[in-house]
C-alpha cells in the first residue's frame, strides 16, 4: 500500500474541510443561488425601505375663486409651507375654471369668499378623495387663526423621524430572520435532495466517509454562508438607511447562529426523505409560507387575532424575529429573551432528532 498522501497540509485534506470546500464552490458557481440568497433580501430591503421612507411634507393643491378677497386668502395660506413651491402653488381662477380643476383632480379644494349668506368662506371639495378632508381642516385652521381664533389648549407635536423608530428599523430584523429561514431551508434541504437524486449520497456512503463529517460539513458551510448574508444585509441597511443596532452585537451574532442552526435542522428534516426537487420545494414552501405571513417579518404579529397569535408565536421564525427586533431596536438583553431562545433551541433539537431518525442516505 502506498504511503498517505503528502500533498497539501493535514487540514486541507481533512474530509470535513473538503466537504465544506465543495459546498462553497458549488454555491459560488451558481449565480442564481447567489442572487436568491444574497441579492434578494437586499433588494427587498431597498424596495420596501424606499416605499415606506419618511417623505417630505405633502403639498396641498387648492384654488381660490377670483374675488376681491382672493389675494388676502392667498397671503394667509402662504404662511404655511404646504401652499408654497412646486406642487403647492395656489391659483386664483374664475368659478368655472375652479370647477373644471376640481373635476379633473388638479385641485383638492376650492375656496370662495362671501358666496353664501351667513358664511365668510365656502369650501368646495369631494370628501371621498384622500387628503381633501385634511386639506379642509388645515385651511380652516389657518383662516380661523388669521380671523382671530385663540386655541384654549396648548399642544406640542413630537414627530418621530430618528433612526430606530422608522419602518425600515422594524423591517431589517424581519428580513434577517426571513433570510435565515430561506437560507437554511434551501441551503441544506435542497442541497441534500440534489445529492440524493444524483446518487452522490449513496456514492459517499460507499466510501469510508463518516456520516457525522458529512452532516457537520453541511452545518458549517451553512454558517459560513450565513455570515456573509447577515453582513451584507446589516451593513447595507446601515449605509443606505442609517439603520443602527441599539443592542449588543454579540447578542445579534448569537441569535443569528441559533437561527441558522434551527432552520438548518428544518431543512435537514424536510430533505430527510424527499426524493425529488419538486417534493422538497413543495414541502419547503408549505412550511415557509405561514411564517412569511404570520411571523412578523413585515408587520407585527399583534395585528392578528389573539387566538391566532398563540399559534403564530410558537412557529420557529416568530421568536427569532421577535428577539432580533428586541435586541436591535430596543437594546434588549439576551436574558430577557430566554423564553424565545428556549423555543428556538427546542425547535432545533426536535428537528435535528427527527431528521437523524428519518434520514435516508439512498
Amino acid at each position, binding site marked *: 500500500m*502506498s504511503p498517505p*498522501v503528502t500533498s497539501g497540509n493535514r487540514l486541507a*485534506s481533512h474530509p470535513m474541510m473538503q466537504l465544506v*470546500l465543495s459546498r462553497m464552490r458549488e454555491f459560488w458557481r451558481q449565480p442564481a443561488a447567489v442572487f436568491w440568497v444574497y441579492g434578494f433580501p437586499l433588494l427587498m430591503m431597498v424596495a420596501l425601505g424606499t416605499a415606506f421612507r419618511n417623505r417630505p411634507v405633502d403639498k396641498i393643491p387648492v384654488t381660490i375663486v377670483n374675488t376681491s378677497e382672493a389675494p388676502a386668502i392667498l397671503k394667509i395660506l402662504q404662511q404655511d409651507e404646504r401652499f408654497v413651491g412646486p406642487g403647492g402653488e395656489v391659483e386664483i381662477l374664475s368659478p368655472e375654471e375652479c370647477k373644471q380643476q376640481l373635476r379633473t383632480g388638479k385641485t383638492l379644494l376650492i375656496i370662495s369668499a362671501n358666496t353664501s349668506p351667513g358664511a365668510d368662506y365656502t369650501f368646495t371639495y369631494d370628501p371621498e378623495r384622500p387628503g381633501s378632508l385634511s386639506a379642509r381642516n388645515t385651511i380652516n385652521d389657518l383662516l380661523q387663526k388669521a380671523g382671530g381664533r385663540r386655541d384654549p389648549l396648548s399642544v406640542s407635536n413630537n414627530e418621530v423621524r430618528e433612526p430606530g423608530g422608522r419602518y425600515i428599523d422594524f423591517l431589517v430584523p424581519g428580513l434577517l430572520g426571513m433570510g435565515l429561514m430561506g437560507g437554511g431551508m434551501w441551503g441544506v434541504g435542497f442541497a441534500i435532495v440534489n445529492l440524493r437524486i444524483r446518487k*452522490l449520497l449513496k*456514492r459517499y456512503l460507499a*466510501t469510508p466517509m463518516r456520516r457525522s463529517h458529512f452532516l457537520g460539513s453541511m452545518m458549517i458551510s451553512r454558517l459560513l454562508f450565513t455570515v456573509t448574508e447577515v453582513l451584507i444585509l446589516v451593513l447595507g441597511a446601515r449605509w443606505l438607511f442609517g439603520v443602527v443596532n441599539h443592542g449588543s452585537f454579540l447578542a445579534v451574532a448569537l441569535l443569528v447562529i441559533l437561527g441558522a442552526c434551527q432552520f438548518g435542522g428544518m431543512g435537514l428534516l424536510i430533505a430527510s426523505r424527499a426524493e425529488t426537487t419538486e417534493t422538497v420545494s413543495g414541502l419547503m414552501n408549505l412550511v415557509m409560507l405561514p411564517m412569511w405571513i404570520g411571523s412578523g417579518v413585515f408587520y407585527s404579529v399583534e395585528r392578528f387575532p389573539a387566538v391566532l397569535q398563540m399559534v403564530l408565536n410558537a412557529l420557529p421564525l416568530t421568536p427569532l424575529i421577535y428577539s432580533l427586533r428586541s435586541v436591535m431596536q430596543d437594546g434588549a438583553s439576551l436574558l430577557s429573551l430566554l423564553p424565545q431562545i428556549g423555543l428556538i433551541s427546542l425547535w432545533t433539537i426536535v428537528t435535528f432528532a427527527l431528521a437523524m431518525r428519518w434520514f435516508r442516505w439512498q
Partner: protein
Amino acid sequence: METPAIHCRELTKTYAGRPPVEAVRGIDMTVAEGECFGVLGPNGAGKTTTIEILEGLLDQTSGEVEILGMQWRHAAESIRESIGISLQETRFSDKLSVLETLNLFRSFYRHGITVSEAIERVGLEDKAQAWVKNLSGGQQQRLAVAAAIVGDPRLLFLDEPTTGLDPQSRRQLWDIIRRYGAQGRSVLLTTHYMEEAEQLCDRVAIIDRGKIIALGSPRELIARLGGEHVIEFTLTPNATTLNQSENDWTQVNHVTGSVYEDGCHRLTVTQPHLVIPQILSHVEQAGVQLGSLTTRHARLEDVFVQLTGRHLDDTPEVPA
C-alpha cells in the same frame, strides 16, 4: 489457503411488496484474490442487487458475505477502506472540477494514491481543471473509476462501467480496468455486454432471474455449448420446416445445438466445413434457396441464448 476477495453463500434478497420480489434467489460465488470476475445477465436479472449487497450498500435477506475475509457487520470501516466502488449512474457535482472531485474522494480514505496519479491512470490529465458538466460520457465514467481507485483498493467493484458509451470510450475503459487487474488486484464487474466479459474477465457468472445459471471462464462456457462455431442461415421463401424433426438440426453430425428464431436458424457446430455441405444438400432437396449463410466463433451471448432461449440485450455489441 489464500483468503478470497469475495465469498458469498446462499445469498438471497427479497424486496417487500405485493407480491414480494425475489431479486436474488440463492447465489454462491467465490472470487479469488487477483481475479477479474464478471457478473453477466440481462437487465433485471439481479446483478445490481447482488453487487450492492457485496458492496455493503444493501442488506441481504439471508446468506453469508465475506469481503477480503471480513464481514460487513463486524468490520464495515476496514472493508470500506479496502474496496473501491463505481455505482451505476452516479452524477458527480456539475460545477466541481475533476481535480476537486477527486480531492474530495481522496480525503475520505486514510491511505491511497495521489489524486494526480489517479487522474493519470484514467488518462484525464487534460481535463483535470474542467468542470464535470463539461466532460463527455466516457470521461465521466473514467472519473467514476478514478474516484473508485483513489483509495488504492484491493478490490474494485464496477457496476455496468461502460453502459451507454461509444465503442472507443468503452475500449479506453477496458484498458484502464486491465491495467488495474495487472497489478494483482481483484475486480468484480457487472455487465450486459458479452464482449466486455470475454475481453476482461477471468471467470464469469451468468445470472438470470436471481440465480447463477452458468459459471466458468468465458472459454469454458463456450466450450460447454459443445461447439466453438456458430452457423446462421435463412431460407427463401421462408420455409420454416425443412426436415421431419421440425427445425431440429441436432440429428445432423457435428451439430451440438440448434435454435430457430425469427426466420433464422442458428446452429452451434464443431466442424463447420462438414456441416455446411449437409445444409446445402438439405436445402436443395427441399426445393428452397438460401437467403444468407454466415459462420462465426461462438460467443457468450450464444451460451445465454442456449441456456434460456432468450437474448441478453438488444444493444449492439462492439464490432470485433
